[in-house]
């Protein structure tokens, strides 16, 4: 109930404020705050959650505004139609910018949005059809039938209703299967891709959502001001939108509203106060904004709302999935059948052959250990099998299918699931939510149904599966703990639970015992033995020989990128070449 409190309070206060005898000036201020908050709401999703930065949101506001202005003035279309045309145009331009820049490293998007914002500004300012720098005048106010809802109090209700709806949609989205995928974007793409998530698709998606929020705000703004001109859509405004999101708390949905209110009020105040102090007119407020932006990033990087959020911690998720149906399971190879066949895989980095024609196979129900001294090429082999690195040559067959050329997320979808040498998780999500990411490929509800909350049946099934896997490895007590607060050993176990959540046909564990204390290692060994009993097929890269010798059926020993030997633990231990590789030879 507690997390719905801001929504309830806001929803109640909107009609009350509308009825209060406030001066019109304040209603107008609130209207602007609502419009700006709608734009920075998109930035909270894009920048705060997804880690992508756009300075060009004002340009998308402009597309929404100019589309409706031109179409209603010149073709006499109803604003209720032009809204959707504006959304369509915005979507197309956002897709073009997004598809071009989002494949590249993070700083190209902001650069592209700066350039894009500038060129759109000059385009609006120079096109005769759009009235050049004077803009378009004489727009009609929004109306339903004969009732004018485009001004004053009614517009206030409309604008804030849209804002609250947008905020609720985002909150719903962030707490869902696609939302967890979006929250993983910030920490690099490798983990998300290994869970079968197309990170590129989600980057484009959130860029698109943010642009659409901006376009709606533009449409509202155009009919509220009843005039549009380029100055409201320039780069300065784009930067101010980002500033609102950063000040308010770029990771928090309600931070957008706080930031918009603060920046709007401060802006108005400074525009009057500063010229009075300085003695000449001019937009001196940018000095204060610039300095404030730097100070906020230095001393309050999570924004103002983070202070509020700390006071009201999220209550634990209600256990509403006990009745949920189990997720369907995939068919796996019968015990003894081959799961993985690695055939002469090779990786060259320039002149260095890191992995030199390695071959081995794993039968269902087997635990195979991949061992070797440091630098033997174990991790590279691991990355070649899981598709993180591309192979120079060779073939990997998984459950009878050739997966040599597939990217890691496709291989993950086929049922190969892995953990990481350095734990990769989303530290500010709970253990349960982190583990539920593993079941990503077993759900299919998308962004829209998450926003509208029609995904609840599936969500419950995912959560139930996550809880089941956590209990399977003995972590049933820490479901609601923040993942970042866990000890190293528990984090590694959590990664195993996350991998298990995908219902894998083969589990790949990359040094699961690295950095663990003795007790934690014992717990891990117990989990591995249990999985062995349950018939799980596992490929294990590990340095801890006691652990390896204890749990593995077969060992593959690598040295300097080549296969040294393979066999049962006893055979390998007796092999003089292995001893020489690990301990050196006597001369």
């Amino acid at each position, binding site marked *: 109930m507690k997390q719905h409190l801001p929504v309830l309070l806001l929803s109640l206060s909107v009609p009350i404020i509308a009825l209060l005898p406030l001066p019109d000036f304040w209603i107008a201020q609130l209207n602007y705050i609502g419009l700006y908050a709608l734009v920075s709401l998109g930035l909270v999703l894009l920048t705060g959650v997804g*880690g992508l*930065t756009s*300075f060009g949101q004002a340009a998308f506001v402009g597309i929404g505004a100019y589309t409706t202005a031109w179409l209603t003035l010149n073709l006499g279309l109803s604003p209720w139609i032009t809204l959707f045309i504006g959304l369509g145009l915005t979507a197309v331009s956002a897709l*073009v*910018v997004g598809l*071009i*820049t989002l*494949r*590249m*490293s*993070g*700083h*190209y998007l*902001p*650069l*592209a949005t*700066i*350039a*894009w914002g*500038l*060129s759109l500004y*000059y*385009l609006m300012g*120079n096109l005769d059809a759009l009235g050049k720098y004077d803009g378009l005048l004489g727009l009609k106010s929004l109306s339903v039938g004969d009732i004018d809802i485009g001004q004053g109090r009614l517009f206030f209700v409309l604008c804030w209703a849209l804002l609250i709806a947008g905020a609720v949609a985002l909150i719903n989205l962030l707490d869902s299967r696609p939302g967890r995928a979006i929250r993983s974007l910030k*920490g*690099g*793409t*490798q983990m998300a891709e290994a869970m079968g998530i197309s*990170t*590129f698709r989600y980057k484009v998606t959130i860029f698109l959502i943010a642009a659409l929020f901006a376009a709606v705000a533009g449409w509202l703004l155009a009919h509220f001001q009843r005039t549009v001109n380029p100055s409201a859509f320039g780069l300065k405004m784009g*930067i101010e939108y*980002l500033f609102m999101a*950063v000040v308010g708390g770029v990771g928090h949905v309600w931070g957008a509203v706080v930031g918009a209110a603060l920046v709007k009020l401060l802006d108005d105040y400074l525009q009057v106060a500063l010229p009075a102090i*300085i003695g*000449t007119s*001019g*937009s*001196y*407020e*940018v*000095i*204060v*904004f*610039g*300095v*404030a*932006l*730097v100070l906020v*990033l*230095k001393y309050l*990087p999570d924004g103002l709302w983070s202070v509020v959020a700390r006071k009201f911690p999220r209550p634990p998720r209600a256990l509403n999935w006990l009745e949920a149906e189990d997720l369907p399971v995939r068919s796996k190879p019968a015990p003894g059948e081959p799961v993985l066949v690695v055939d002469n895989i090779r990786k060259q980095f320039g002149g260095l052959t890191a992995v030199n024609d390695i071959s081995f196979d794993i039968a269902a129900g087997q635990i195979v250990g991949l061992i070797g001294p440091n630098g033997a090429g174990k991790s590279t082999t691991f990355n070649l099998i899981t598709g993180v690195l591309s192979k120079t040559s060779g073939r990997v067959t998984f459950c009878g299918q050739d997966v040599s050329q597939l990217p890691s997320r496709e291989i993950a979808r086929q049922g190969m699931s892995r953990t990481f040498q350095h734990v990769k998780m989303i530290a500010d999500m709970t253990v349960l939510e982190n583990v539920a990411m593993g079941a990503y490929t077993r759900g299919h509800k998308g962004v829209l149904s998450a926003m509208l909350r029609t995904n609840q049946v599936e969500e419950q099934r995912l959560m139930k599966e996550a809880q089941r896997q956590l209990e399977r490895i003995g972590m049933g007590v820490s479901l609601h703990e923040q993942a970042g607060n866990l000890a190293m050993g528990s984090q590694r176990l959590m990664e195993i639970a996350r991998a298990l959540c995908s219902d894998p046909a083969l589990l790949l564990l990359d040094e699961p015992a690295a950095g663990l204390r003795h007790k934690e290692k014992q717990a891990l060994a117990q989990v591995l033995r249990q999985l062995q009993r349950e018939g799980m097929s596992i490929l294990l890269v590990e340095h801890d020989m006691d652990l390896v010798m204890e749990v593995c059926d077969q060992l593959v020993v690598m040295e300097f990128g080549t296969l040294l030997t393979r066999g049962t633990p006893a055979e390998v231990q007796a092999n003089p070449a292995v001893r020489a590789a690990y301990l050196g030879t006597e001369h």
Partner: protein
Amino acid sequence: MDSTIASILLLDGLTSGAVYALLGLATVLVFTVTRVIFIPQGEFVAYGALTLAMLQSGKTPGTVWLLMCLAVVASVMELVERWRHHGNPVRALQSALKTLLIPAVVAVVSIWAAPQQFALWVQALLSVAIVTTFGPLVYRVAYQSLEAATPLVLLIVSVGVHFAMTGLGLLFFGAEGFRNPSFWDDRFALGPVTLTGQTVIIFGVSLSLIVLLWLYFEKSLRGKALRATAVNRTGARLMGISTHASGQLTFLMAALIGALSGLLIGPTTTVFYDSGFLIGLKGFVAAVVAGLSSYPGALLGALFVGIVEAFGAFWASAFKEVIVFTLILPILLVRSLRSGHSDEEH
């Protein structure tokens, strides 16, 4: 269009391209060493041109006061941080005074020299000195404590710095624009086109700066140290290279390049307090052509941007900015298709 017009446009484009090249180089330089995408690079250009304009009219340039303010802020920060970290107030005070020293000397000399109406080249030298002094101070005040932040945070900081510097430019220079006198008034006929002395200077200065930069980074130990910082900050620190010092040195060079660019374009166009931004961004587009990493790439990119702008201005003058800045999209598309890999492990 006949060949005469085409060659005039080409020369025009190459001239502005030469200036963009300098700014593009500065952008690449700053990014590779500090991972800062330095949006305010253009502000140094405007500051340089306007400082000279103020000196020309015999007034003390507003940049001098700004410089002093910034130096005081920087030295207070230095004092507090050193004191806190090392607990030695005498050492902290020393280092604070060291921060203050050079800006103070530059300021005093400027205040003395401003009403004397020295020769143009002396004033030019003084302008360069004033604006160059800004570089390390800006780094000290805005970026130094955020060295470990992600490039995205640094980029947003850059935008904040750009805002502040533009507003301060308005405060100290006023809204009026200035056009500086040419350094060399001779003209040379070269086939159908006329080469002005200023054009020759622009090409000369750009080329020699590029060569100097190349020599610095290839041949000198300091330059190699900067390159090391660019490749691996931790490694560089373990080798005894201070990242603080590297950052400040880089910003010094960026400010120097900016100030020189300001002097170069000052006589060719009217410069306002906010003109630097667009000029800097065009250098930026050039740097993006080079993927923010290659110096020769930035040079070629800049010449290309200059030529596109010149021809764009001829065919559709109202849309020349639109053309230049939309150019970045196909450039990024090509880069994206060629690179193909996404960023891993921030």
